[in-house]
């Protein structure tokens, strides 16, 4: 579906406050804020003495580097896995839950009044 214009005044107060995240430039700001936080956390490693069970734990920034690298590796590996195991949604036929709509009797689809 395409972008839908919504009158912010009609949104719940909390939702209105969160609208900030969709403003242009916000994503960049969030990314930079994250980067700064990561930098500070890296520096924090020098402020206390570590007593890890393993030597690698005592390397400054070990957890950060490990998290960054492994996370990226995970995403890339998952992309590769998708090539192997992705199938059309009706792969198991039309009588599988993946193809069914959830019965309306169990739902209460109500639109927010906007």
């Amino acid at each position, binding site marked *: 579906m395409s972008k839908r214009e919504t009158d912010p005044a009609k949104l719940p107060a909390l939702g209105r406050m969160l609208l900030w995240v969709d403003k242009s430039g916000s994503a960049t700001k969030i990314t930079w804020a994250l980067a700064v936080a990561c930098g500070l956390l890296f520096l924090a490693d020098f402020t206390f003495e570590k007593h890890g069970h393993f030597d690698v734990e005592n390397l400054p920034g070990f957890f950060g580097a490990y998290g960054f690298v492994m996370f990226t590796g995970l995403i890339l590996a998952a992309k590769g896995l998708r090539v192997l195991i992705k199938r059309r949604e009706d792969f198991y036929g039309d009588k599988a839950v993946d193809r069914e709509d959830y019965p309306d009797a169990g739902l*209460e689809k109500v639109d927010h009044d906007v």
Partner: protein
Amino acid sequence: MFDQIPTAFLFFAGAIALFALPQGRLRGALLLIVPVIAAWQVWGLELGSSHTVSFFNFELELMRVDKLSRIFGVIFCLAAFLGNLFAWHVRDTVQQVAALLYAGSAIGAVFAGDLITLFFYWEGTAIASVFLIWARRTEGAFHTGMRYLIIQIASGVILIAGVALYYRDTGSIAFENMTLGSLGTWLIFLSFGIKAAFPLLHNWLQDSYPAATITGTVILSAFTTKLAIYALARGFAGTEILIYIGVVMTLFPIFFAEIENDLRRVLAYSLNNQLGFMVVGIGIGSEMALNGTASHAFAHILYKALLFMSVGAVMFRTGTSKASELGGLYRTMPKTAMFCLVGAASISAFPLFSGFVTKSIILDEAAAGHMYIVWLALVFASAGVLSHSGIKIPFFMFFAHDSGMRPKEAPTHMLLAMGITAALCIAIGVYPAPLYALLPYEVDFTPYTTSHVVGQLQLLLFALLAFAILMRTGIHPPEVRAVNLDTDWSYRWLLPRMIRKIAGVVAALWNGILSFLTQRLKNIIAGLYHSHGPEGRMASTWPTGAMVIWLSVLLGATLIVSFFG
């Protein structure tokens, strides 16, 4: 008198009493009161107390109350309460009865002091829970439920076979710590492993939980697998192979969860991954490791239920749980979004949230045992949890691209259920002492040390940064409508085709043999017809003269024989 009633029976009595009440608030209230009464009873039971009955020649121990069974009993009551609160709007007797019987069976199994009682409740959870899937009332749900039921019942059948062999070997049916060795113990282990979703035995979980009703999945998520974790902790603590099984369990689901589109199935994979941490704790088997497992199960039931509730609430309003169809819902469902974020932070083990104070016990024990590879794998798996449960669930549902949907905020009872659960997640994270006091053994652990907090924050924030970069560079895989193959492919796709193929070959062989035999039979009949038929030589009418000739030949021969004889 009150404490003489096995806790499970309170739930069963509640299930019967439901029929006396009309659909509506009264029933809803009963569904909430039963777990509260049960929790109150469990709380009041003295540790070490037990309740036995005779059954044929066996003494069955229906209630064995110790610190290990008590913590699982308490969290199961709490989960039943929260699940039923979330399902306040449901007016379906099948689901209401199933929820009570299911929770009751799980609690009964946890307090079972012997293996036969365990078996009865074990099957009870299987039979009661399948109705939460069938209650969706679609053909797909029916077939999924059938697959689920076959696997769950199989687990029970393997259990009772193992128990029989174990009894023959040891002469005891007591449910105590066992050592893997005999066929009996291996069968019991396998049966627990099926329910605990060990690798390759896991796929019933991801197959069935997304097929259940919206509220049914919330209830399903709490009991079956954690009952198996309890059973493993009781029966096989310190079994080394569990460490490796657990490590594999934490790792492989994170790859599948990453590319899965149905968010309830993502959560099922993530559930599988969380069970892995608990299984590692059981495998290590030290007192602190078992504390870690029990506390992680406790925290996990809450945040997993919370996540299933938030996805369920979105599904309740939009009709779908597929990431490709959702997005941008924070505008109109901000409260649900916030609760979802609390669940996401808890499962990702952010400091001040419940996962942090429980999972780090297990990681610390692995490190203390100098299991370097195991520890590295668990730290990696922790980053993996962040990727699918911490980021993917809230991000693609409430943020990401605007789907254009503007659903109304979740109904009040759902918000209440999510709110209480979220509050508990935060409370445990901020002040873990009461939870630690409930654990089976003495706790000697400080979660909030500088190195713990900084290390964990580094891991999570750097991973988040990696996500932000991958998203902005477009490398992160998009959410698309698709199914992904898993081991269920073997019995949903391969097996039917193999059976069809084999059936084809058998049919061809059969037809071949049959037509060959028919042809032979026809030939015989034709031959007989040829000789004995109306036109046949043997059936033709011969002239009288021919008979006279043959008679004279016969007489002549007799004459010659008697002449020379």
